[in-house]
């Protein structure tokens, strides 16, 4: 419509305008370099602004619409839009971006309307919207392939027409030869039926031949023999053609080179991507392992909650008797998380936040009732284990009574059992320890009866200097030592009790089972007897003579030199029984011959021997599935309880002196200052060192996130896990 209007009357105007604007055109290239900064107003734009001033008042929305859809936003519509909702905008700087309502836009309208009005699609809008964002992204210097091979070059090298010259050359080389019927031959060779209609290029003369005997066509043709002439001799290509072909070939070779570099760059890119993906996969696998660990933890927690449920139900029924010494359920098998003060969560993991110093010799045994409860620790050449309050970190008192170094301790709530080198086991009531007076008994002294009467406070403990069974019953009511169990002839090196039953192992190479109610020894299990009778009793075990040099002296004193610890120290290891634990009537013991034995406490026989360690076993623990044993051969072996096979062997640098494990980790004292923790799900080792011991760690015990360790530096350290 409006296209017809500006006919002749405006031709002049246009020409004049063009004449005016010609110098402008040549001016604009320099202007483009300072395009953004300047507000270069060409004459054309001035005219635009003058004529279309009323249309410049526009708010944001109409401007955007104008930008994107000039064909919709004809001048009329823009005008109406601006008058309806207009807000005068302060005109700022650069021209073209600002005033869209200019002649160019108007000029577009007829073009758009004229040429088969095409709808603005979403793709158009998408493109235009994207420009702004794209312009902001950085344009780096091209390097690598990009600088060597430009996109255009690659284009020319890879488009199909690049192949044209090659096929053209091939065609040039094709020679006019008489029809040989190769196609038919080929198809026959492939077993396909030949097309009977294929008579192209055949001379009439040989048609009969073709119908009757197709195969013989080639040889029976007459008059067309070429003889010995070479095919290439018939063709004359000419110099121009040949030079052209040479150039083409050179170019084709360059194209090949280009394509090769393109492909190489793609290959390196893909390699990088694969590496990145591999990294992501490794990270995800680690996350999976973490989830597995969490699941195990939750399983344990579930067990703990179930037990707690039962416990709370039974305790509501049970009448509490404060005086009678009740032996509570063993904490060794308790799995769920422990009750900790809320402040414990604020502790950073893996540090020793408390140190208990009182001993003057290396720690030989320790155990505690619960986190922040009561700790009992014993050290070498000290007959009196110390009792500590873990909440405050102060010593409550001492357990006096033993006449030899205490080698093993187990604490369950208020009950404590200690075994010592004097061959006795004492049962202590820890509630009575803080009644202890402040009269400093010297360590290790055996006080005679006369001294006791002189002190005369009435609540003193009477030492058991005389070893007789009757004396046990005469102790003072406030004496922490509730009972003394005698029977072993040599040092009691390990013990384990649960409910009413206690099992001890001693250097007289026997294991004794005791009833804690009566204080009597119920059964004695002789390890030497088990060794010598092992071949008959044990199916599937290793050689019964898997004894090594040091322990071959099964007669006489057992003494094995320990491998040096991290600080180079070593001593003679004389504990024949390194560890015991039982559950129900199943007992597991680790002994100086390096064997882990499983006993049936009903019969007293060892029904299985697990061979594998090559040095005395020093520590032992089992749960429903696994047995873990540590030994002087610097390894910890994890066995399958049911089959007796080894699951895992953890190797360390020094002899293992103590261990404890659960489904997720194994915590071990391995002759170093740091405590070794092995994560069973991720199979990673780690060490606890922060504020740690200054000499090798000897003993440890943990519950949930609370770990207590004792070392040769005579200190006991408390860690948060």
């Amino acid at each position, binding site marked *: 419509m*409006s296209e017809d*209007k*500006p006919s002749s*009357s*405006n031709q002049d*105007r*246009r020409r004049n*305008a*063009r004449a005016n*604007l010609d110098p*402008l*055109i040549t001016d*604009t*290239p320099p202007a*483009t*370099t300072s*395009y953004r900064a300047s507000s270069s107003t060409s004459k*054309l734009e001035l*005219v635009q602004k003058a004529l*279309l001033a009323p249309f410049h008042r526009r708010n944001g929305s109409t401007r955007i619409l104008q*930008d994107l859809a000039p064909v919709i936003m004809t001048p009329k519509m823009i005008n109406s839009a601006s008058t309806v909702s207009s807000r005068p905008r302060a005109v700022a700087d650069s021209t*073209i*971006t600002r005033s869209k309502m*200019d*002649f*160019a*836009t*108007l*000029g*577009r*309208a007829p*073009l758009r309307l004229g040429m088969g009005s*095409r709808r603005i*699609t979403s*793709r158009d809008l*998408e*493109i235009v919207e994207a*420009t702004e964002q*794209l*312009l902001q*992204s*950085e*344009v*780096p*210097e*091209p*390097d690598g392939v*990009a*600088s060597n091979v*430009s*996109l*255009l070059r*690659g*284009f020319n090298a*890879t*488009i*199909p027409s690049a192949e044209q010259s090659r096929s053209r050359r091939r065609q040039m080389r094709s020679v006019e030869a008489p029809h040989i019927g190769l196609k038919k031959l080929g198809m026959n060779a492939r077993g396909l039926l030949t097309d009977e209609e294929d008579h192209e290029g055949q001379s009439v003369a040989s048609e009969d031949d073709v119908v009757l005997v197709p195969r013989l066509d080639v040889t029976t043709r007459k008059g067309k023999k070429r003889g010995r002439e070479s095919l290439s001799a018939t063709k004359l290509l000419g110099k121009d053609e040949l030079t052209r072909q040479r150039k083409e070939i050179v170019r084709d070779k360059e194209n090949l080179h280009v394509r090769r570099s*393109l492909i190489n760059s*793609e290959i390196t890119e*893909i390699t990088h991507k694969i590496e990145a993906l591999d990294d992501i996969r490794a990270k995800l696998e680690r996350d999976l392992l973490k989830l597995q660990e969490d699941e195990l933890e939750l399983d344990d927690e579930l067990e703990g909650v179930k037990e707690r449920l039962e416990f709370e139900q039974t305790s509501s029924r049970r009448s509490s008797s404060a005086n009678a010494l009740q032996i509570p359920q063993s904490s060794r098998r308790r799995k769920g998380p422990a009750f900790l003060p809320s402040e414990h969560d604020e502790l950073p993991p893996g540090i020793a936040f408390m140190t208990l110093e009182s001993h003057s010799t290396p720690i030989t045994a320790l155990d505690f009732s619960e986190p922040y409860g009561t700790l009992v620790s014993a050290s070498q050449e000290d007959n009196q284990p110390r009792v500590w309050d873990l909440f405050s970190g102060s010593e409550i008192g001492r357990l006096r009574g033993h006449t030899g170094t205490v080698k093993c301790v187990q604490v369950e709530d208020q009950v404590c059992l200690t075994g010592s080198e004097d061959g006795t086991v004492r049962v202590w009531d820890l509630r009575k320890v803080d009644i202890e007076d402040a009269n400093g008994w010297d360590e290790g002294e055996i006080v005679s009866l006369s001294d006791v009467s002189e002190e005369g406070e009435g609540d003193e403990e009477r030492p058991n200097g005389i070893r007789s069974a009757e004396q046990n019953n005469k102790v003072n009511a406030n004496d922490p030592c509730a009972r003394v169990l005698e029977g072993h002839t040599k040092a009691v090196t390990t013990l384990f009790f649960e409910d009413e039953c206690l099992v001890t192992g001693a250097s007289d190479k026997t294991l004794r089972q005791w009833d804690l109610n009566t204080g009597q020894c119920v059964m004695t299990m002789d390890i030497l007897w088990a060794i010598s009778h092992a071949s008959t009793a044990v199916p599937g075990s290793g050689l019964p003579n898997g004894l090594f040099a040091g322990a071959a002296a099964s007669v006489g004193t057992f003494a094995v030199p320990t491998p040096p610890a991290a600080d180079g120290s070593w001593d003679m290891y004389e504990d024949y029984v390194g560890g015991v634990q039982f559950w129900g009537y199943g007992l597991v013991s680790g002994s100086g011959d390096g064997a882990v034995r499983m006993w049936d406490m009903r019969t007293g026989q060892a029904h299985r021997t697990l061979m594998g360690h090559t040095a005395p076993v020093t520590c032992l623990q089992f749960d429903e599935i696994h047995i873990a044993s540590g030994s002087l051969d610097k390894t910890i072996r994890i066995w399958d309880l049911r089959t007796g096979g080894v699951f895992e062997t953890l190797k360390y640098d020094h002899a293992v002196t103590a261990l404890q494990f659960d489904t997720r980790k194994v915590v071990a004292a391995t002759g170093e200052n740091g405590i070794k923790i092995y994560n069973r799900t991720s199979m990673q080792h780690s060490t606890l060192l922060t504020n740690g011991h200054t000499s090798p760690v000897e003993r440890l015990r943990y519950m949930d996130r609370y770990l207590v360790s004792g070392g040769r530096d005579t200190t006991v350290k408390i860690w948060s896990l």
Partner: protein
Amino acid sequence: MTTELPYAADAEVSLSYDELEVLRLQYEKELSLAHVTVQTKFNYAWGLVKSPLRDHQVEGVKLLQDLYRSEPSRRRECLYYLALGHYKMGNFDEAKKFNALLLDKEPTNMQAISLAQLIDKGVAKEGYIGMALVGGAAAVGTIVLASLIRRATRK
């Protein structure tokens, strides 16, 4: 360092339908393999931009934009091709922006300079048409007004 770029006239020469088909098939084959090489994408995009159909040009520019986003090393070339694509489509503003960015980086690039000139010519040409429209509208307006006034004075 000057990048090797085609003159704008090259964009006016379109590929044959068959060639474009081949490029399209190549592109789609690589799409189905979930890894499209840069060269394939560019080939197809460039073939589309060269085509006279507006739809193709839009598609081509979109592919070029994808390339721009994903390949930082190729961005400088893409600037030129994007400018060229927009110029063909008539989006002179976008074309100018891209071309200006390229000229920032390479002030001596012959193709970029010639493209800038072409863009300005295009803008000016549209300006004339617009001016002509305004003039025509003014002429019509005066004629109508004049006839009205004449009618009024006559009566």
